[in-house]
């Protein structure tokens, strides 16, 4: 083959290749562009600045229903009730104390108004209460040594709290009782660096508000509750959306059981 023939062949080959690529583009041979699913908007729970709990002090201040916290609806004043302990030395909590928690939680701190919550039932068709909602546990401290009602409550007058040094406080001033043992934390709280401030950092612009211990910590299980985190940044959230659903629910179940 002479040089000219070779040149013509190469040119023809290039032209054919280009035409094939063009045809491919026109016919969408590589598939159409898939638009990723839109990122969901910020959930309202992430713009609601309420604290996790509604403390009793706040309920009394707002004159809301505190009937569940009325000790003497069931107990008799002046009579010391003996505590029952199980074989591990833990206090056995009466079932009646379990209901105290419902009106004390700020639902909007964790849930969205439009969120659908799946209610689960046990074999007797009783609602299974998630661990985060119940105070039917005493988890005060990593040891069980502090799980005794009368460490804080006055035995013959349950509406009073007593510090280890013998000072009595009403339920609304529980912060001072907590500080009886958690002195360094109370010092930080009084200095304004433990717990969240709301309002204004600038005094002339407005007031600063903050809550006592019980607004965030459950006195009976003061470890801060674990939470479901907000969704991760895209594209990870989008990848998560395409992942098979059963994996995620299994993990959720495992964590609710804890």
């Amino acid at each position, binding site marked *: 083959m002479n040089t000219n023939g070779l040149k013509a062949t190469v040119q023809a080959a290039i032209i054919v290749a280009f035409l094939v690529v063009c045809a491919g583009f026109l016919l969408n041979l590589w598939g159409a562009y898939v638009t990723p699913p839109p990122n969901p908007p910020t959930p309202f729970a992430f713009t609601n600045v309420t604290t996790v709990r509604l403390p009793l002090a706040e309920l009394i201040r707002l004159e809301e229903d505190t009937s569940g916290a009325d000790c003497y609806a069931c107990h008799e004043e002046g009579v010391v009730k003996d505590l029952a302990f199980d074989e591990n030395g833990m206090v056995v909590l009466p079932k009646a104390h379990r209901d105290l928690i419902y009106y004390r939680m700020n639902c909007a701190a964790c849930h969205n108004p439009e969120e659908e919550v799946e209610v689960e039932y046990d074999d007797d068709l009783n609602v299974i209460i998630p661990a985060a909602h119940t105070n039917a546990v005493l988890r005060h401290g990593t040891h069980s040594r502090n799980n005794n009602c009368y460490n804080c409550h006055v035995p013959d007058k349950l509406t009073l709290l007593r510090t280890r040094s013998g000072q009595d406080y009403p339920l609304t001033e529980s912060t001072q009782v907590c500080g009886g043992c958690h002195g360094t934390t109370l010092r930080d709280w009084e200095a304004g*660096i433990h717990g969240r401030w709301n309002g204004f950092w600038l005094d002339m612009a407005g007031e600063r508000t903050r809550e006592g211990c019980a607004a965030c910590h459950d006195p009976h299980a003061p470890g801060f509750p674990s939470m479901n985190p907000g969704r991760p940044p895209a594209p990870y959230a989008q990848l998560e959306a395409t992942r098979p659903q059963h994996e995620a629910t299994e993990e959720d179940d495992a964590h609710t059981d804890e």
Partner: protein
Amino acid sequence: MPTPMNNPAPATPAPDGGDRLNRRSFLRCGALAASGLAALAASLAPLRDLNDTMSVEEFLQKHYQEMTPEEMGKVLARITREVEKQYEVRPHVKDYKPMDGVEFVYALNLSRCIGCRKCVHACVAENNLSQDPEIQYIRVLEMPNGTFDMEKGRHDYDGGTVPREGHYYMPVQCHQCKNPPCVKVCPVKATWQESDGITVVDYDWCIGCRYCEAACPYWARRFNFARPSVPKERLNPNMSYLGNRPRQKGVVEKCHFCIQRTRAGRYPACLEICPTGSRKFGNILDPDSAVSYILKHKRVFVLKEEVGTLPRFFYYFDV
């Protein structure tokens, strides 16, 4: 005498009479010119799709620091008009100025943070951050206990509740450095440090070269690759010129300590949402402020101290 060299023989037309416009050359030149114009028009065709071009007013706008209050008022009116047209919400756009005797400092308690990402999403809502493509100012790193190696951290953790056993959480956002590398590299002075310590961006002056994004050792700057999308019903109408007003495509943005809140005396959105109270904010020049107390009494460190940026964002421990 020699004939003058600068006066050579006249450029005689080609003997075939090329000076005359004959039919052939007319058609050739005409075809060339027509195809040239067509090619030019075709190459400019994408300009027809430009719908977010800047207005003449915006094009002629001066640099933020050179604007008189009257000019600023006109600019704010223009922004109000544009936002109202685009989002059908009447915003309150203001130009908040730094206060005298105020220098903002942020402190974050690593012992308390549980990594719930509430700060991230509160920031998105407060600062009108784009949802598609997504922009978030705060990056929460999930770090294994016992290391400060950022490469071991993950910011895409998901599934199950936090905090996870054996991990601590480290939110990273703009550190508002006293020696900011991002400001040094800006070729057009579209970003600078204000007297209260906030490094701000003038979105109308930014040319989108992204030098600052590359210079930041904390990965704090974000670039608008596309026109930001904020749902109309989610738009925060309380806006500031240097803060959370809607951004354009092709400009850089970053955390500005919620300038529209903090310069009005309020706390940043990320602080107000934090359920654990890990975040502390205040005026470091005030000896009675919470941040002054933290810097005096707590074990405090800054991220990447060795790069010499002197951040105004401190991490501390409760021990």
